């Protein structure tokens, strides 16, 4: 068994309320910081004057619809200008997006390691799925489990999906490396059993660079490996906020927008 991650230690030490609401607090914090950073980046990467003019003109065309409402040709022309003005505004507003999308996606991918899934609980059964390159090698795949983990059912082979699955259970909290043996080679998969908010990687992959960057938190499987992926079925996390259960990304979307609109007013930035 490897040592717990520092985050695990920290979160385990936090008082009860914060521990219980830690994911929500983290989302709020990340949203506020990202919202602030976004408006600052927006300020320096966008054409503020052009955005100001584009927005003003949109407002003018909206007012024209009201002011000249009895003149049908004028109203129709104004609608046309609203549409083209919206396109112009979107073009201007998306330019800053090009600058931030990559770092933001990478950041979200990293935060998703912590907030996307709930770690396994001690005594809770979970599935470990291994996908192989071809169905013939399924019979060659075996597991080496640390002493704290046990299998609760025989392995299930699904040749049509090149998949083999085990039902496992952990006796107590901790980070465990499960060893998958195939063609005489061993490939490990980190499995986290915890009640905190540790870093979790649901899958280890061979190749598939972007998916590895965005979803996996572990090194790639060797290219020569007969195994394509090793997956642990962590439950997806939902955060209760405002009488609703949220996926953290949707909550982040809403809160970062609120933060962005707040900071843009404070800093006088045009968005």
């Amino acid at each position, binding site marked *: 068994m490897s040592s717990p991650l520092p985050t695990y230690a920290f979160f385990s030490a936090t008082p009860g309320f914060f521990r219980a609401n830690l994911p929500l607090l983290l989302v709020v914090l990340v949203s506020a910081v990202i919202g602030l950073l976004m408006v600052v980046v927006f300020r320096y990467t966008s054409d503020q004057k052009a955005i100001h003019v584009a927005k003003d003109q949109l407002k003018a065309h909206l007012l024209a619809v009201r002011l000249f409402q009895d003149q049908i040709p004028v109203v129709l022309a104004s609608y046309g200008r609203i549409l083209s003005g919206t396109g112009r505004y979107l073009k201007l*507003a998306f330019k800053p997006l090009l600058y931030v999308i990559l770092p933001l996606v990478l950041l*979200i991918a990293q935060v998703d390691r912590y907030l996307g899934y709930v770690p396994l609980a001690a005594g809770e059964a979970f599935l470990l799925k291994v996908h192989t390159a071809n169905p013939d090698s399924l019979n060659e795949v075996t597991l080496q489990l640390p002493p704290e983990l046990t299998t609760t059912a025989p392995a299930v082979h699904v040749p049509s999906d090149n998949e083999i699955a085990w039902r496992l259970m952990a006796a107590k909290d901790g980070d465990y490396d499960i060893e998958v043996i195939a063609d005489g080679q061993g490939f490990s998969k980190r499995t986290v059993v915890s009640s905190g908010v540790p870093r979790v990687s649901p899958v280890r992959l061979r190749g598939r660079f972007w998916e590895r960057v965005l979803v996996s938190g572990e090194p790639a499987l060797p290219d020569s490996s007969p195994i394509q992926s090793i997956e642990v079925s962590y439950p997806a996390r939902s955060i209760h906020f405002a009488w609703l259960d949220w996926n953290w990304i949707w909550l982040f979307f809403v809160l970062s927008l609120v933060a962005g609109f707040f900071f843009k007013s404070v800093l006088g930035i045009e968005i």
Partner: protein
Amino acid sequence: MKQREPRFARGSRLLMLLLAVCVLVLAFPVRSEAYAGPGAGFAFLSSFWTLFVAFLYSAYAFVTWPFRHLFRWLRRRKAYGKAQIKRAVILGFDGMDPDLAERFMAEGRLPNLAQLRDHGTFRKLRTTYPPISPVAWSTFMTGVNPGKHNIYDFLARDLNSYLPFLSSAEISAPKRSVKIGKYTIPFGKARVKGMRRGTPFWHWLGKAGIFCSVIRVPVTFPPEKFPGVLLSGMCVPDLKGSQGTFCFCTTRSHGDKFREGGVRVPIERRGAVYHTYIPGPDDPLQAGSGSELRVKFEIRPDTAKKQARINVDSEAFTLKVGEYSEWIPVKFKAGLGISAHGICRFYLKEASPEVEVYVTPVNIDPGRPDLAVSHPVTYSIYLAKLFGSYATLGLAEDTWALNEGVLDDQAFLTQCYSNHDDRERMLFDALEKTRQGLCACVFDTTDRVQHMFWRYLEDDHPAARGVPRDQRPQVIQELYRRMDDLIGRVRKQIDDDTLLLVVSDHGFKSFARCLNLNAWLHQNGYLTLKDGKSESGDWFEDVDWSRTRAYTMGLNGLYLNLAGRERFGTVQPGEEAVALKEELRSKLNGLVDPSSGKVGITGVFDCDTTYAGPYVDNAPDLTIGYGDGFRASWDSVMGKVTGQIFEDNLKAWSGDHCIDPRLVPGVLFSNRKIAEEKPAIVDVAPTILKLFGLGLPAYLDGKPWMVGMKVAAETTRP
């Protein structure tokens, strides 16, 4: 050697790279990259909101359309049933002079006006008594003489104090306020009461279902409700409530107080940064204390580059010497959340060794008006959003700053034509929006430029002595050429069903000699000064009213000190008053300037025979018609009594029209034949009403013209 890539090439390559990354990311959608971040959210939400509002309004318009259409159809059928025209476009060129127009047409400078003359109409347009813009434009819009619309000058006088007040509008404090110690907390906005009476003809048109766009016609402040859109013109105040008070910030410690129209503000140097302020309106929380609100700003001159960086509120901008800023929003904060929003432009006059910055009068912000300057109030906002901020002040061209030498000729012209360009944009937008109905727009540039540059048109104007003839700029010629060009562009926008009228409220003449009528009244025993005084300060400071029988203030008015009317009146109404008027008329009419032998006054008009209507009592008892080359002196206008009756006018304000109305008719051009040989400005309103098939109210003084319905192709398509 490796050549350095241009910056924009590297920038666009980076952009392309980022775009490619985005495409790649979005091409492999998995969990976390499905979300594009707040940036996309901002863009999405903002644009979605716009479309959502537009959609909602569309839905509302769609649902109500049959009813509105039916209602409109019924009204329009009635309105246009007897109409002879589909649309009337009236271009008001304030002060365009028929003699100059004729001269420039003969010289081939004005091809578009010449085509209107040759194939449509060109006439001299009889103006009002007196021929002053607020008077003439009030008559233009109401179709009545001043006795019925109550405007006789820019200024009227308080019968109790003999002090002047603005004749067109009265601005007072909010109705309700609470006084706590020395503080007064106002509730609500300042109250504005229009003083012009009579009904503008676009109100009649609007009621009949004919849409009207009216832009910057003088004396339309406060804007009155009617079914159409209107942007107020001349007489809109600045944020201080004046008709235009510029601010001149300077490190020079000396300098005379400006006679009028501006204030000198010191600049204080602290290290490399210069600090100064813009004076604003009176502090509403300390009403009556004379305490004013201010907006501070910083100037950081760059001597080497002959420029300066200016920081005001949250705005920062750099100006080169001789350059204007854009319209900059400023906010005067009084506390308790009370503030006044304005806009102004900065002009860097000097950056080294002294620092001097001219700031235009602080205009009411059209995009966020604290006082409505349009009807509906959203119209000024609409124009501000569409074209950016623009001048709202009635007299937006700062003639005082040029008069006082704060601005030079070029800086003044730049300001004029900047305002003019804004006005053109508004006009063309109104033309596009008003396919049927009335589109009326008044341009002030013609008036202001002629006032200030007439000196270059004459050989021997006192204000241009010393300027060699070959170095005199052809400013007025260029002005007329620009206006002609504008007409050409307007003609491209109109069809044969459109009546085009180009009108001016008066013409122009030289203002070379000042005539101080108060001095004449004093020297001839009609006005008496307090014992020991040989002259009087502004607004009759040293006049002994108990021994005064007549006085003058404003541009053309002469008043009797009438018992029972004026507080210290001495002249009995009836026979004595009639006799005094006759005596003054006979003495003043034909008054000769001894230095040249020219006649300084060519007509004196009695109010009893000149005006008719319910407001005749407010009229000057006599209206003075100055001769060509003369005008009321600057001192006389301000109720000052000096020793000299005649003197040279040395100010840049060198042309004028506040003289004998018979000498300064306006112009009337049209794309149609107009039979009337001697049209008058009072006829415009009834003519338009008649052309749109409306009945004429009985009280109108004007008579409708016979307008030909056939339009020569040359007059609509240049």
